[in-house]
């Protein structure tokens, strides 16, 4: 079911996407980004920007940060997904199905409970630290258990996430934070303004670091024995990969909220087109992720204007549909 399509992917990868395709994707994504800049409750257009200082201020305070936040968050989550799939050698693992996001959520909650007045940075650090610990625990578990079925791995991760989520819910009930926790869990970009989105730059930098480390991560994904045989320090490579994922997930969860499925569908879509070589596919993953999230956000802003549907809802619905299509397609082909 999972192994068989690899051949097709290999074949597709060998043929390779046409050189101009990546450029086309980049142009398309840029177009969506520009569209995102000019959609919204407050009318903004180009002549206005030049003439009206108020429009320019709105543009810089709200629209530009929002668009950048979308792009960075999308890159962070899709790249996290591809790295986790590489390290676990499992197509169905991503921060949501490994419990990483749930750990980040617990971290956020703990920060709010323990230091209610602490700066934003506290939440960020605690969320990232717990995301890191949780992901390491998940990796440790899946290395211990030998499993027959690849689908078992995400299912175990989801159960793990459910335990952590239940702990968070319990704490939230006790301290009457349930509804505000619901607000974090449901991600949206409507509240993103200047001075709030900047931590996401970290995610962008991590994505570049992953690009640099791509070959090592690919090797580590082949397993301890093969990696060691090839002279790679397996533990360090693994730790680097997991830290990168935790950092991306932590930052995105705190600033934006949970973005389900992005890390799952984007790498799978890209892998169908061009195989699994990380160095080659990473730009595709980043651009596709950004394009999808920009599109979901624009749709969410237009459909019920002047209100907004949070991007996580649209992503949840569209993402699950796309994911099922991918999974069932693999089932037919396999």
């Amino acid at each position, binding site marked *: 079911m999972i192994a*068989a399509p690899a051949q097709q992917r290999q074949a597709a990868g060998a043929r390779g996407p046409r050189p101009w395709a990546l450029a086309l994707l980049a142009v398309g994504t840029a177009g969506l980004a520009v569209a995102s800049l000019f959609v919204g409750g407050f009318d903004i257009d180009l002549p206005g920007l030049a003439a009206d200082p108020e429009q320019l201020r709105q543009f810089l305070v709200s629209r530009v940060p929002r668009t950048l936040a979308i792009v960075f968050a999308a890159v962070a989550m899709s790249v996290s997904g591809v790295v986790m799939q590489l390290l676990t050698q499992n197509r169905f693992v991503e921060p949501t199905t490994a419990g990483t996001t749930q750990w980040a959520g617990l971290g956020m909650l703990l920060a709010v409970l323990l230091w209610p007045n602490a700066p934003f940075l506290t939440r960020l650090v605690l969320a990232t630290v717990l995301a890191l610990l949780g992901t390491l625990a998940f990796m440790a578990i899946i290395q211990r258990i030998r499993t*027959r079925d690849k689908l078992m791995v995400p299912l175990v991760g989801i159960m793990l996430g459910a335990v952590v989520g239940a702990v968070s819910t319990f704490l939230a009930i006790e301290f009457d934070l349930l509804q505000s926790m619901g607000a974090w869990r449901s991600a949206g970009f409507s509240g993103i303004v200047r001075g709030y989105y900047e931590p996401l730059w970290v995610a962008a930098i991590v994505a570049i670091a992953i690009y640099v480390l791509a070959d090592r991560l690919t090797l580590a994904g082949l397993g301890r024995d093969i990696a060691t045989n090839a002279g790679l320090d397996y533990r360090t490579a693994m730790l680097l990969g997991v830290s990168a994922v935790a950092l991306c997930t932590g930052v995105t969860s705190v600033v934006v909220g949970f973005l389900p499925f992005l890390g799952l569908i984007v790498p799978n879509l890209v892998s169908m087109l061009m195989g699994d070589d990380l160095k080659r596919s990473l730009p595709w993953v980043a651009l596709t992720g950004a394009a999808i999230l920009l599109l979901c956000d624009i749709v969410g802003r237009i459909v019920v204007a002047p209100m907004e549907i949070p991007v996580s809802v649209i992503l949840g619905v569209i993402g699950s549909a796309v994911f099922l299509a991918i999974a069932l397609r693999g089932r*037919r*082909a*396999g």
Partner: protein
Amino acid sequence: MIKFHDVTKEYGGHRVLGPVSGRIEAGGITALIGPNGAGKSTLLSIVGRLMQPTSGGASVDGLDVRTAPTRELATRLAILSQEHRLDARITVRDLVAFGRFPHTQGRLTFGDHAHIDRALDFLELTGLQHRYLDELSGGQRQRAFVAMVLAQDTEVVLLDEPLNNLDLKHAVLIMRQLRRAADLLGRTIVIVIHDLAIAAAYADRVIALKQGQIAHSGTVEEVMTAEIVSELYETPVRILEVDGRRVPVVMP
């Protein structure tokens, strides 16, 4: 007697077997040999109704394996596939007792216990019968599964590489028991096997598959020739005669 006609199996448009037709007469041991990916296990699984063919069909004792009630088939046909998964903690004896299920639907009688005892004894498992399967070595577990299939006490027994994980002693032990079941009880045994020397020593007939087709079929003497085996595996092989038996030897 086993019959199969025009059997094919395709995965995603890629054909791994067939079309093959043939019959395996009642009684005796038939060895299915051939290189990896020749379709041996696929053919065995289709006859044992563990796998649906893409086209064609198979019958055992005149029962079409696709349409006959699986419960009735289970009293005439036993198949041991290559992979056995097990999560429950089950003792060897309990596993072998499952072989009686088609006859009893779970309610064991005195006679059933006799069957179980005999199967355990045949495979030298009596001393291990109260151990849990997950405490055993791969070879011991393999013997337990073979014992279960023997306890099922069917006319037709299909075994997919039953000698996996077994040392020489226990491989020979199993083949001797199969030989006995064929000779004394008139069982029809079909076995997928990679060890040509053991196949030549114990089988009556050989069916050689290659690239999803039956390349050769006949007695051991007819099929186990240097020419046929060398061509089958694309590897130079000589066949020696030792005490009137065929012994394939690889040429370095």
